[in-house]
């Protein structure tokens, strides 16, 4: 496989992760999406879920994102979401509380976001 991707995982007020990667997996409004090097330029809407980045060094970075975007162009991938969290920034009890609150309010998007955070926690 030739080439790598320059990936930037950006939250509204900071850059969460950036570096070289082989593959990026994300959940978009039209289904799960995997991006490899030399992908065609793409702008896609993200739904709350887990973004998985396979870094060049073999490391796997998982992050929970809220709604946002993914843009691919010239082997540069930007994942933009107002709420982006890596596993070590999350506290399980907080996330569970958030999930419960979201469920009791019947807020489907918030439930999705909280579940994504849980998945990130459990797999790390």
């Amino acid at each position, binding site marked *: 496989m030739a080439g790598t991707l320059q990936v930037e995982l*950006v939250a509204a007020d900071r850059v969460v992760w950036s570096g070289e990667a082989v593959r990026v997996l994300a959940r978009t409004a039209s289904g799960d999406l995997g991006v490899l090097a030399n992908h065609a330029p793409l*702008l896609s809407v993200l739904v709350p879920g887990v973004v998985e980045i396979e870094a060049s060094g073999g490391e796997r970075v998982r992050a929970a994102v809220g709604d946002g975007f993914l*843009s691919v162009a010239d082997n540069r991938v930007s994942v933009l979401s107002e709420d982006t969290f890596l596993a070590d920034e999350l506290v399980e009890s907080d996330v569970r509380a958030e999930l419960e609150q979201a469920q009791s309010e019947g807020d489907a998007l918030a439930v999705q976001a909280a579940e994504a955070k849980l998945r990130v926690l459990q797999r790390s």
Partner: protein
Amino acid sequence: MAASVRELRAKIRSTQATKKITRAMELIAASRIIKAQQHAAAAAPYARELTRAVSAVATFSNVDHPLTTEKENPTRAAVLVITSDRGLAGSYSSSVLKETERLAEKLRGEGKEIDFYLAGRKSVAYFKFRDIDHVTSWTGFSDKPQYEDARTIGEALVEAFAEGEDIDSDADSDVDVRPVDELHVVFTRFKSMLTQEPDVIRLLPLEVVEGTEAPEEHELLPLYEFEPSAHEVLDALLPKYVNSRIYYCLLQAAASELAARQKAMKSATDNAQDLIEKYTRTANQARQAGITQEISEIVGGANALADATAGQE
């Protein structure tokens, strides 16, 4: 000497206390500016990427979105005023409010009604004192805005704008509905530590390409594919773009507020120092006058005594 030495000493002490306070505020403001600038730098990548994405969609698709189309007959404008929560920042808040008045005048001249949205306690107090109505206000974060704050404000404003869209067709049938046709933001732009200027930007309808954050050197944007569709991408992008612009304004305003406060407190400290010097001089003079008077009294007394004894002999 009019003022006694004791009174002057008391004045010096109280001025010294004031000076300590203003000096502390100056230092606090100075250290917070650095933090505010770091926040602004940290927010830059998101704003940059978002701007790129929005310009890409705007360039490569002919989608008309409510948030980007200009109304033919705008009748109602929303104005978001960003001031500080606290005073002691020189003319920071008042110059924003002056700019607001100017903008309001202009908009009224164009026959638009104005809805005010206020951020910062100073603007709320100003509007309350003048008995001018406002729609909503947000307070408590002026010197340290979080993205959450920008999101709350952004959502409220986009909602007001979108409402205007929905009711547009039968706008004249119902007097109570308030469609907002445009949105302006009055805030203070942080130019440097020394200059901060009140500024007005029109946020909605969106003018996508903005001088300050446009993609560098007119690079050619790649031909994007849009998923699920250009319209849906735009739908999701634009409110976020608005939030991000508001966040940018809040951060600029926060940095300006701190810089203005630092400057105001620095001149307050300098003034206090001048006062202390002046009082110290007067106090020294008064003390010296007292001593001179005492000496001349003693000399006078001794002379009188000497004269008296000389007369006896």
